[in-house]
């Protein structure tokens, strides 16, 4: 069950990576990056369920925090520059 779900999740991550590589403007790439970040959080939750360790949930929380910071800083960079 977990293998099938993980394969579907990785397939949708690959489709998002296609938009990340192709996207015409910088804002498209940042949107795809934010979406991949959220998918990574749920992938870490699935990893914690697969290995039966609750340590990965802490890693998922910190990963979500760092990814939110990254998206916000990229938005500010598009708006005002460095």
């Amino acid at each position, binding site marked *: 069950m977990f293998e099938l779900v993980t394969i579907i999740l990785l397939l949708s991550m690959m489709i998002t990576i296609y*938009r990340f590589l192709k996207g015409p403007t910088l804002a498209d790439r940042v*949107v795809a990056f934010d979406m991949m970040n*959220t998918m990574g959080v749920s992938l870490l939750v699935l990893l914690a369920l697969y290995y039966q360790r609750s340590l990965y*949930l802490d890693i998922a929380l910190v990963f979500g925090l760092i990814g939110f910071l990254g998206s916000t800083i990229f938005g500010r*960079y598009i708006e005002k520059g460095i």
Partner: protein
Amino acid sequence: MVYLGYVFIFLGVMAFLISAIGIIRMPDVYTRMHTGTKTTTMGVIFIVMGASCIEPFWAWKLILLAIFIFLTNPLSSSVIARAAHSDGATLELDEFKEVEK
């Protein structure tokens, strides 16, 4: 209870797949942001609900994760939308273009 969790996780992953199809098919920055933020928020909340149905002892950490995603995901989307608007992104299907002229 475990099979209910499996159903929730499957629904969440299907929401991710619909979101990934939408981010390819949509023609514009704002519509891509529309399909890329709301659907992933729903997918994460479904997956967290399924995981807390499978492992009930992890429920506090999972609820904290869900609240965190639920608070920060629209905020980052708003920041990116404002940045794209100030960068000069235009709508592909603009219904009010003739009204303004």
